[in-house]
Structures are given as structure tokens and as C-alpha cells.
């Protein structure tokens, strides 16, 4: 199916004894913005980090079930090629303490791009896509840590885009930012959804409603509801969802 990026079937995730995700089955649409919401500790980050196998680093972590990315099973494929297709942006901006240019060429270089002209082009394209180019084009050789928090986060988005992924995972990308920087990133996410599949975890329900096409609602490890944002906000089918939307638990 052209319109589906991830097909997830009976996914169960454990940290040691802790059953963190329970029987998650769903299909995530391609080139749309899907927002993942739910109370704290319900498994949102866990879900996101299963999609690019970031959790493989945790010794107690286990999973069962299947996640197919464009038809290919991800849970058994090579983590390197999976992560090349499924980029990630973290909650706290975490640029490398290198120049802006080196930040956005790190990915391509580890994947074997050596030509300097080509690297320059990639840097420019990624920074333009992340709406950062105009602000930094004259100081590409400056250390990325000198940028503001919001600029750093857009640099991290540019860095993720530099390897031309299919999917961009964002885990509360604006929670460390001020309202104006947040607004810029929300606008950016909308633009990016034309070319990329975006899956974003957010604690800010208003934000989820503003930017998402689809909404996933998790509750204590269960995927309670998954539908278009419009359908869920106007007519939720589970009482827990409507409680959450009314702000009964946060």
C-alpha cells in the first residue's frame, strides 16, 4: 500500500518484567503528521523508540510482534539501514559540539559521501528544509552550541533530514523551547509533512490538534484509539479518550 508507511502487528514491548506496550496493532499513514498523545508513562516514547530500534541499547528491553516499514520487517533488519530511513529528533536539542556544517554533514559522511561539493549541497538543502538556512548561511563554520535553543532544535531536524529519511520521529521536540521557537517548529513540521512521514510525541494537546492529521492515544501501554484528529476530537469512541481530551488526566 502506497499510503501506509508502518504496518504494526501485535507489538508487545517489555523492560524486564515491565510490560510497556500491549498488543499494539495499527497502520501509520505515509506523508502525514501523526501525533502520539497520552498521560505520562503510558509508553509514547517507548513506541517511538521501537520504530527506529533506539531501545536496542537497553539491556532489559524485549519485544514481540512485527513492524513493517514499506513492507520490510524492521525488528530483524539491520539497525543501521533502518535508522537511515527513520530519523529521530530528541526532546532536548542535542547538536554535536562541532560546526553547524559538520553537524549536518555528519550523517552523509558516515554513510560514505566524501565529495566536498556534494556535502555542501546536502548541508544547504537540509538547512533550507529545516528553515534555518537564512539564519546561519554566513556562519556555517561557527560552533553549533552558540545557536539559540530553537535554532539548535531546527539544526537537529536538519541533521536528521541530511540522510534523506522516509520518516521523522520527534519526541516532544518543543517542550524545551519558548513559544516563538515552538511556533516555528510547528510550521516547519507542517511543511515537512509533504515529503516526510512525521510521528510526533507531544504533551501539548493543543499542539497535537494544531499540527496533526492523525492522533494516537495511548493509555498505560495500550493503544486506545487511533484515527484522524478530526474524528477523535469531534467524536471519540472510547471514554478514556474523551476524558483525556477534557483534561481529566494529563
Amino acid at each position: 500500500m502506497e499510503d501506509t508507511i508502518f504496518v504494526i502487528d501485535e507489538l508487545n514491548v517489555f523492560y524486564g518484567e515491565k510490560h510497556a506496550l500491549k498488543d499494539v496493532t495499527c497502520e501509520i499513514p505515509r506523508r502525514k503528521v501523526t501525533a502520539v498523545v497520552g498521560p505520562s508513562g503510558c509508553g509514547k516514547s517507548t513506541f517511538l523508540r521501537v520504530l527506529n530500534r533506539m531501545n536496542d541499547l537497553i539491556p532489559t528491553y524485549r519485544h514481540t510482534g512485527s513492524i513493517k516499514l514499506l513492507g520490510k520487517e524492521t525488528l530483524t533488519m539491520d539497525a543501521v539501514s533502518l535508522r537511515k530511513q527513520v530519523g529521530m529528533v530528541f526532546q532536548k536539542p542535542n547538536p554535536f559540539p562541532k560546526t553547524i556544517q559538520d553537524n549536518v554533514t555528519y550523517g552523509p559522511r558516515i554513510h560514505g559521501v566524501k565529495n566536498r561539493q556534494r556535502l555542501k549541497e546536502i548541508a544547504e538543502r537540509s538547512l533550507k528544509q529545516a528553515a534555518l538556512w537564512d539564519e546561519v548561511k554566513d556562519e556555517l563554520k561557527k560552533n553549533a552550541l552558540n545557536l539559540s535553543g530553537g535554532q539548535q532544535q531546527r539544526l537537529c531536524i536538519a541533521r536528521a533530514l541530511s540522510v534523506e529519511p522516509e520518516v521523522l520521529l520527534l519526541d516532544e521536540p518543543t517542550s524545551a523551547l519558548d513559544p516563538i521557537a515552538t511556533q516555528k517548529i510547528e510550521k516547519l513540521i507542517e511543511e515537512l509533512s509533504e515529503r516526510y512521514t512525521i510521528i510526533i510525541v507531544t504533551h501539548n494537546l493543543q499542539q497535537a490538534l494544531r499540527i496533526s492529521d492523525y492522533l494516537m492515544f495511548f493509555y498505560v501501554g495500550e493503544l486506545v484509539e487511533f484515527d484522524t484528529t478530526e474524528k477523535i476530537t469531534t467524536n471519540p469512541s472510547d471514554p478514556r479518550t474523551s476524558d483525556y481530551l477534557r483534561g481529566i488526566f494529563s
Partner: protein
Amino acid sequence: MRRKRVELSAKVLVTFAALLTSIIVFGIFYFLISDGVRVFGRVSPKDFLFSARWYPTYEDAEFGILALLAGTLSVTGLTLVIAIPLGFVCAIFLAEFSGRKSHDAIKYIFELMAGIPSVVLGSFGLKYVSRWLMEHFPLHVWTGLNVMNASLMLSILAMPYFVTLVEDALRAVPRDQKEASLALGANMTGTIFRILLPQARSGILNAIILGTNRVIGETMVVLMVAGGATMVPSTIFDPVRPLTSAIAGEMGEVELGSTHYFALFMIGVVLLAISTVFTLIAMKLKRSKGK
């Protein structure tokens, strides 16, 4: 009111302790240097530093420490060549690849290693390593007590220390840096070489400097297994007499107030100077890491 008084007396006590410590340290510096410089009444600084002839008990006594210095440098250098690569491999394994059990087991072994008294290590080198060297390199080795033997023993001494410091430096790199690299599709090796090691650089340099400092100052091991010959070594199997072992070996028999006596103190000053320079560099690195 009462609390204030307690606070005040604590302050006085701490100030006093700090003062006393500084007085003792500077006192040591002062006596060492004031005795040491008196050697220059009879030997020129140039001969002292740049002559390799150390014949302190001859009729026509000579006091050139170049050979001793060469002994210290060769033993220290070879120790670093052995211990740094090995130490890196161990530290990287401990910080990034070991499971909890293997991590604890290896740490335990290093702790045991760190607890070996240097005189025991010296005895081991004297009895077993020297024989082993004689048997396995018969063409090169004319005495089992030599630079190689000393460096092997000193590596055992330095490794636990070095590995711990490098592991700490690697662990001090924020986790999100490693995740950022992996999330871009880098493998673990690439992440270690491109992200972790560069970001741990100052901690690693610090580990190398502190480790070197420790190796230079170590006395018992080199006294026992370096061979004791006052010569500039031409191979790693030559015997040498490092600065520390000259002091330790000769101080007991020297006549108070003789030129030899002052020369030994001057060697102490040289050692102190080397160690001070290293410590200052390490402190500077630590400060720049804080930025």
C-alpha cells in the same frame, strides 16, 4: 547564635589546616631546592644535566644525570606504549560493550591489580619476568633486568588507574550525543571514534598525564627490575638506572653534605619539576573541560 559560633570555628579550623598543609608543602620544596642547588657549587648545571657520566663514588667523581634521565624516559615511554593502547581497549570495552556481569568482573580484577604492592610486583619481575625474557629473547637479552621488564611491571601498575580514568571520561559524554549519532545510522565503532573519543578528549589527556606522572615517580619497581646500569639504553633490553632508583639506591650510603648528597637532592628537584609541570597541565585541562 550557637550555629554562628560553630560555623566560625569550623572556618578557623579549615583555614588553619589549609595553611599548615601549604607550609609543609612549601617547606619540602624549599629544603629540597636549597640543598639541591648547592651541587652547582662543584658541578656546572650544564654538566649536571647534559653529561651522561654518573660516577658519584669515584675518586674523580662525576655527576651527569643524562643517563639517569634517559633511564626514566625510556622506561616511562615504553610503559606508555604498552599501557595506553591496552588501556584504551579495556576502557572502551568497559564503557560501551560490557554487560553488567563482565563489567563487574573486569573492574574487580583491576581493583585487585591496583592493590598489588609495588615491592611484590618488583619481586615478580625479578624472579619470573627476567627469566622469561632471557628464555624468549636470548639473542637480544643479556640481562633479564632491563627497560622491558620494568615497563611490563609498571604497565601493570598504571593500567587500573589509566583504565578507570578513561572509562570515566567516556561515560561523562552525555548519552544524547551517542543517541544522536546512532539515530543517524552510525554504527557503534563510528560513534566511538567520531563522537565519544573526541568529546572525552580532555579527560583522556588528563588520564594520560596523571598516569605518566605516576609512572615517572614510581621507585620500588624500577629499583628492583630496571637493571641499575648507568647507561643510555640503545635497545629496550638494555638495563637502565632511572632517576628515582638512583635516589633510593644511593641515598642510604651517601655522606651528609657531600657533593653526591646534594646531587641526589637536585635529582629530586628535577623529578619534582617534571611532576609539577604535568600536574599543572592536568589542572589546566580539567578547567578547560569545565567550560
